[in-house]
């Protein structure tokens, strides 16, 4: 099936900051895709380009074959969008708000009532219909935000961090609602929670520092990262740069980190070596140490999971 959303080398800079950096991805019709990344990864910026809030600095995106810059109005007609933090007009009533959104979207008077009732039913807002927006709980605000995003029966629904700020029960309900919407529509949602994409999405795009670093189904990503192994080493009698170069030179070593020398035992270094799936480097490291006359004080093997990879991204960002 051909791509419904197609981003090619999408780039956005804010002054010197490259918020989104040559991002390419495709979304097929009917898919529910999660854009997963820590804060500041570029999720919102990516969505702002998709929704025609701002054009890409470089690259392009097409929705249903239409370029978002050239055919901006047509693209906007076909998508529903719920921005981060659910901005709503607090001074309006729930029905009045949906009526306004339906009018701006050009839904005919004869269709409007039906469109609103359908969105209300779909999002479980029935009991709130007469309430002012300002009186809604966070969970119901979210539902109202979702209702306006689907009121015109769009092909594509874009949701920016749709469960942030909700309590655990509300999160479960909203995820269920998103899955339900996803059974009929193409959905792109962003989140910084790994469990969320696993609970809701068919496919995950992991974004960090403005770049897509992984793309696949949750199961694929799990098995891809699951096999990765990390060896923690403690080696004595070596020089820092020598050690780093030698470990990096081992066939199959993907990432090498050598720490600062131990304060008490000079010439003792902690190091870690990551290797791909099914690659066991323990023997090679042992032989290297023997050959160079280094003392292998400790070696510990750990299997890395998707959670580990993602946590590393998040922790580094928080630090």
């Amino acid at each position, binding site marked *: 099936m051909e791509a419904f959303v197609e981003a090619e080398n999408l780039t956005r800079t804010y002054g010197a900051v490259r918020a989104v950096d040559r991002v390419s991805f495709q979304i097929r019709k009917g898919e529910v895709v999660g854009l997963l990344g820590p804060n500041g990864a570029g999720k919102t910026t990516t969505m702002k380009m998709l929704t025609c809030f701002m054009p890409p600095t470089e690259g392009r995106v097409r929705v249903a074959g239409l370029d978002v810059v050239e055919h901006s109005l*047509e693209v906007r007609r076909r998508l529903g969008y719920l921005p981060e933090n659910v901005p709503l007009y607090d001074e309006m009533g729930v029905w009045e708000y949906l009526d306004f959104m339906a009018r701006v979207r050009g839904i005919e008077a004869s269709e409007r009532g039906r469109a609103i009732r359908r969105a209300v039913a779909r999002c479980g807002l029935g009991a709130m219909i007469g309430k002012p927006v300002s009186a809604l709980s966070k969970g119901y605000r979210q539902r109202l935000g979702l209702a306006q995003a689907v009121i015109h029966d769009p092909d594509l629904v874009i949701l920016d961090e749709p469960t942030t700020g909700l309590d655990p029960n509300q999160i479960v309900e909203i995820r269920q609602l998103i899955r339900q919407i996803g059974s009929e529509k193409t959905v792109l949602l962003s989140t910084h929670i790994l469990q969320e994409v696993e609970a809701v999405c068919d496919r995950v795009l992991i974004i960090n520092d403005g770049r897509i670093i992984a793309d696949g189904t949750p199961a694929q990503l799990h098995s891809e990262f699951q096999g990765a192994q990390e060896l923690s080493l403690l080696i004595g009698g070596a020089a820092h740069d020598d050690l780093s170069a030698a470990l990096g030179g081992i066939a199959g070593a993907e990432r090498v980190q050598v720490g600062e020398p131990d304060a008490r035992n000079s010439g003792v270094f902690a190091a870690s070596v990551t290797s791909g799936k099914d690659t066991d480097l323990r023997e090679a490291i042992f032989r290297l140490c023997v050959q160079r006359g280094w003392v292998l004080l400790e070696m510990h093997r750990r299997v890395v999971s998707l959670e580990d990879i993602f946590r590393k991204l998040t922790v580094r960002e928080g630090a």
Partner: protein
Amino acid sequence: MSGKGVGMTGAYAIFRREFAAYFGQPVAYVVITAYLLICGWFFASTLFLEGQATVRTYFEAAPLLLVFFAPAIAMRLLADEWRSGTMELLITLPVRDMDVVLGKYLAALAVFMVAQGVTLLYPLTAGLLGNVDGGQVVSAYIGMLLLGGTYLAVGLWASAVTASQVVAFILGFFVCFVLFLLGKVVALAPAPLVPLAEAIAVDTHFANLARGVVDSRDVLYFLSLIALCLLGAVSTLEGRKWGSR
């Protein structure tokens, strides 16, 4: 093409919402009531203190009154959308930036016209009590509409550049005040600059209309200022595309 149709529908929907929003807010009533009371005072003071039933003092005071009143009506229009984040959603609806600006502007203008409509009581009363030149009143009201419309457009542009209603008010007030003041200090300007100051100043153009002279050049002056400010607001909204909003 359906593009245009949808655009106007969008502008109309925004107008409707905005107009209703004014009357859902206490601030709007306060501002409008204050305007009516002050206008009424200028009218009543001549009536009772001088025993004259005339709207002359009222139309003399009006340009300065509007310097406060118009930016106060316009300040929330776009600033509040930036503040609450609703701008992000509004702009991604299938409406052009111009439709957003136009819908908002017309709503503010309609609110102003409601308030201004109530002030028609003053010339009507004056007409009952004394001699009022009907043609002059009509012309002066056209002048008020154009002047108010201009100041509202200035206020709307000011409201596009900031997320703070207070900042939007101060900025709009400042620009309107400069336009107003130019006419007052024109006599002090160096001779070569006088024609320029007169051409830019609001006073010169409003004075003709208040006297009962509807000159197309004056009308054109106000309409061009309005168009300039609305386009300014549109380009400020579009600034998000290149800037770092």
